[in-house]
């Protein structure tokens, strides 16, 4: 379990990035953090892996106050993938990049190779194993950065914008890998602007603005709430847009739908069953 208690943080003591954030994430949850650029989302997850330390308030991993843990200790439990893969990649082949972290964490050569190859395969990177990360496309580099963290199987995964540069198919592979790790008990936290990705795969969403949590709850409820959308610079999910437009023509239709299946059923009912 991760617990943040009234966490406050200001860069250089001036630019307030977190203004008192309290939050509990249970082991095995899948949770998305969304919201305005500059709302403090990245600052928040950097507190979870100890890269940043609260200036006020406390962060707990299970029962332990992370103030008494080193970044190296926390890194064994919390794997963080940065938004910009170029901040993370520095070796001359994809395979070395993945093996580096695993060796640092103390895995044997054999174990490291096995984890590396299975993670690379799941992310569709096997053919690129000998390539330099810098010769890869943006989307591919992003997946290498993801693989380098996912391969160590940390208990808690914190991913900053994992879907950037990914096509629909790669997004699905990534989601399947995250689901698989989640089913094995890992906690998965993503910071993302990708509304449709969140709707499909994350049951709980936190919406932030201006260093604070504005809403925290079931994804469908949070993302279809127009007040939250306004405060947190979110737009309506595509199916909610359709639902709102439908509701303006057919008053009994709910304007809070987010899922494809709900919309399909509603439209079928309108067109086949007469007015609802």
């Amino acid at each position, binding site marked *: 379990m991760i617990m943040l208690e009234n966490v406050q943080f200001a860069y250089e003591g001036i630019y307030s990035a977190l203004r008192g954030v309290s939050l509990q994430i249970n082991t095995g949850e899948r949770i998305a953090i969304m919201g305005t650029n500059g709302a403090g989302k990245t600052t928040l997850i950097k507190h979870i892996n100890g890269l940043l330390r609260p200036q006020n308030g406390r962060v707990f991993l299970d029962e332990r106050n992370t103030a008494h843990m080193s970044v190296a200790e926390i890194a064994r439990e919390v794997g963080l993938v940065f938004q910009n893969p170029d901040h993370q990649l520095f070796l001359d082949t994809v395979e070395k990049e993945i093996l580096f972290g695993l060796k640092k964490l103390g895995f044997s050569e054999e174990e490291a190779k096995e984890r590396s190859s299975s993670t690379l395969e799941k992310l569709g990177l096997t053919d690129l194993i000998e390539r330099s990360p810098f010769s890869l496309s943006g989307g591919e580099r992003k997946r290498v950065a993801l693989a380098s963290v996912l391969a160590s199987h940390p208990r808690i995964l914190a991913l900053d914008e994992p879907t*950037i540069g990914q096509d629909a198919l790669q997004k699905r592979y990534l989601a399947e890998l995250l689901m698989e790790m989640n089913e094995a008990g890992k906690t998965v936290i993503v910071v993302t602007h990708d509304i449709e990705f969140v709707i499909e795969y994350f049951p709980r969403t936190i919406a932030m603005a201006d260093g604070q949590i504005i809403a925290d709850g079931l994804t469908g409820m949070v993302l279809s709430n127009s007040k939250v959308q306004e405060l947190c610079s979110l737009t309506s999910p595509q199916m909610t847009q359709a639902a709102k437009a*439908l509701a303006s023509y057919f008053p009994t239709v709910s304007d809070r739908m987010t899922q494809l299946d709900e919309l399909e059923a509603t439209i079928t009912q309108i067109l086949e069953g007469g007015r609802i």
Partner: protein
Amino acid sequence: MVLVKFDNFSFKYIGAETLALRKIDLTIEEGEYVVITGPSGCGKTTLCRAINGLVPQFHRGYIAGHVYVDSHDTRENEVAKLSTIAGMVFQQPENQLVTLNVEKEIAFGPENLGVPPDEIRSRVEEAIQLFNLEQLRQKHPHEMSGGEQQRVALASILAMKPRILIADEPTSNLDPKSAESILKILCYLNKQGMTVILVEHRLDLVSQDASRIILMNEGSIVADGDPREILTLEVCNEIGIGIPKAIQIYRRLKQNGITLPEVPLSGHELAKLVKEVSQA
């Protein structure tokens, strides 16, 4: 008028085993809004680089064929010259920002092109207005969020007054509202006559604005045409293109025997079509 012409162009990066672009033939007219999409690594970014001359002038490699931008062969013209015709915004805005504050960043391009100071000042002000950067005027690019950085990157490219704006996934770092506002600006610029070439995976956000969608796979163009036609092709599913949800519903309804009179590109269009059919 033809602004971009690929004539049987192929390119392979030094050290790469496969061609990044294979025998591309492509013509883009002035004023078009072209969305380029396709699986990750399919050559979209290379295609963009080939238009503003970074390929082959900066990224070296094996070349066959030619690319002409406003009739200039990109093999024979420097990036500096081509940059006044085709400006490009990259995936990672912070890799593109080089100066200490927003004003200087926007002025940097025109300064290097030798634009007179008065003209530079007016371009900086114009860009600050258009991209709503007043609050950030004196800020260091590294103090800004990804979305703010992208707005600055776009502003600094437009200050060079290119005729073609190439944007390589410019909204992926942005919150949905900022993404929407950038896309609105692209649409506005296009209506003012700017040719827009946009690389994007999230077609639900852009297919309504595009006059044309180009689908790439493994270095080749596999489909090219009107968004409503392209996005209902079977090949989209085969290569893993993210079909907008409104179109997915259209297809599901069709399978169940309900045919809407048109392919919807947005939730609003979908709802309108349902209303039409229900009243028919």
